[in-house]
């Protein structure tokens, strides 16, 4: 089975910070109080806790799926000016 990854929809997240409290192994906060999600797949032993953390997000901004994190693919897309 391929790995599971956590993502946050930044347009929904308003910085409740619950996720970073519940899952500090994979989620830290930036200097502005918003979650930085680990780009690594969720390790097996944290799978249950990760699911509970997803369910606990008051903004419903946190999701877990099989798509690798966008941040992990540093080499890939470059910033696109808006008229792309």
């Amino acid at each position, binding site marked *: 089975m391929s790995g599971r990854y956590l993502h946050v929809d930044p347009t929904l*997240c308003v910085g409740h910070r619950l996720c970073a409290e519940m899952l500090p192994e994979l989620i830290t906060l930036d200097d502005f109080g918003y979650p930085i999600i680990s780009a690594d797949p969720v390790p097996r032993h944290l799978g249950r806790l990760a699911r509970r953390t997803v369910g606990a997000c008051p903004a419903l901004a946190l999701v877990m799926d099989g798509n690798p994190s966008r941040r992990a693919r540093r080499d890939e897309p470059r910033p696109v000016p808006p008229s792309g």
Partner: protein
Amino acid sequence: MTLVAPAAPGELRVPRSGPWNQRLLAGPKLGGAEPLADHVGRLGGGITDWTGRAGHHQLLERVRRSGLRGRGGGGFPTAEKLAAVRRHGPGSVVVANGSETEPAAGKDDLLLRLRPHLVLDGLLAATRILGARQAFLVAHTAPAVAAVEAALRERPDVPIPVEVVRGPTNFVGGEETALIRWLEGGQALPRYQPPRVVDRGWRGLPTLVQNVETLAHLGLVVRLGPEWFRGAGVADEPGTMLVTLSGAVEAPGVYEVPIGTPLPEVLYVAGADPGAVALLVGGYFGSWLRAPDVQRLTLSRSGLRPAGATPGAGVLHLLPQGTCGLRESGRILAWLAAQGARQCGPCAFGLPAMASALNEVAKTGSEAALEQLERWGDQIEGRGACRHPDGAVNLARSAASAFPDELRRHRSGACGGYRPSLLSLPPAPDPQ
């Protein structure tokens, strides 16, 4: 070392490598839009005559063999995008994106005003390839809208509704998801992807959002073939591109340049001031290049890669003598911060903080502010719904590394750059 060799007095600036202004900007230098009769007279026949009985597979294959990449900044292979939409079958939507919300850019507007039929050729070719049911063309200015509407009325070969719309004015409004929301009647704000717009775009339909210059090249590829298209440019990035050149040049404006042209040649042709300080490539998301880089690099994605830069949407700004690159970058970054959609925390709070830090660096050369700039850039990158924060971070990083002499000068309380700026930074409009 200067950025570009000075021209001898009275010397005629003739580009040494062609074809400059030979494709999109070929034909008579008109004050207004080229009429359909002239367009067809120059290129022969309507786009349907050129597509003939060719099926969408064959047309797509022509595009694939041409190697055409997007000219809106992303540089994505056009055939791949077309194929991603076509995969869903007919009934999709085409959006010709000429919203051009970058203030230092003017090439899409010029193209739509002077050569609307080239863009419409490409729009109709894309429509044909996709079997699209609806198309939009988004322009930045009222004259461009008028030119395209008049051109559409001239054409007998428009099989589907094409709505011509004046685009949003906010900077992020030209991003594809924001533009689609705008065309649906909503606010021009980006949304989180996935789903990608090629899968679920306008009203949930698979949607091709393509820059208008890309479409103009696409129309010519379908007419004249991939081999012709590859007659300019470099092997992995064929064709010409439109650049908008501003700053310390005698003749600012839009030039059509073969991809891979050496940067000094581009600057020389436009009459660049040999004493200019630095060149901003890729617009306000771009990178500053100093003389050694400008001297050795060419205008292409691969040619600029050694300096960590990209051509973006072809925006070049030459920083005049006596202007401080740090201060100018601080102004751009503050403007970009104010232009965010204020939807995503890292961008809404991070960019203003970075702009303050960069302005502090520009005032005092503060080491602490430089460190903050680096730390926040690393934190913010890749964490917005769109790539607005990433572009702003790119500019900030480039500013922090491109002007070491200015930094030293600022630490001793001096600054060599008090000349007025030539940067275009319009007042921030209200979010749409």
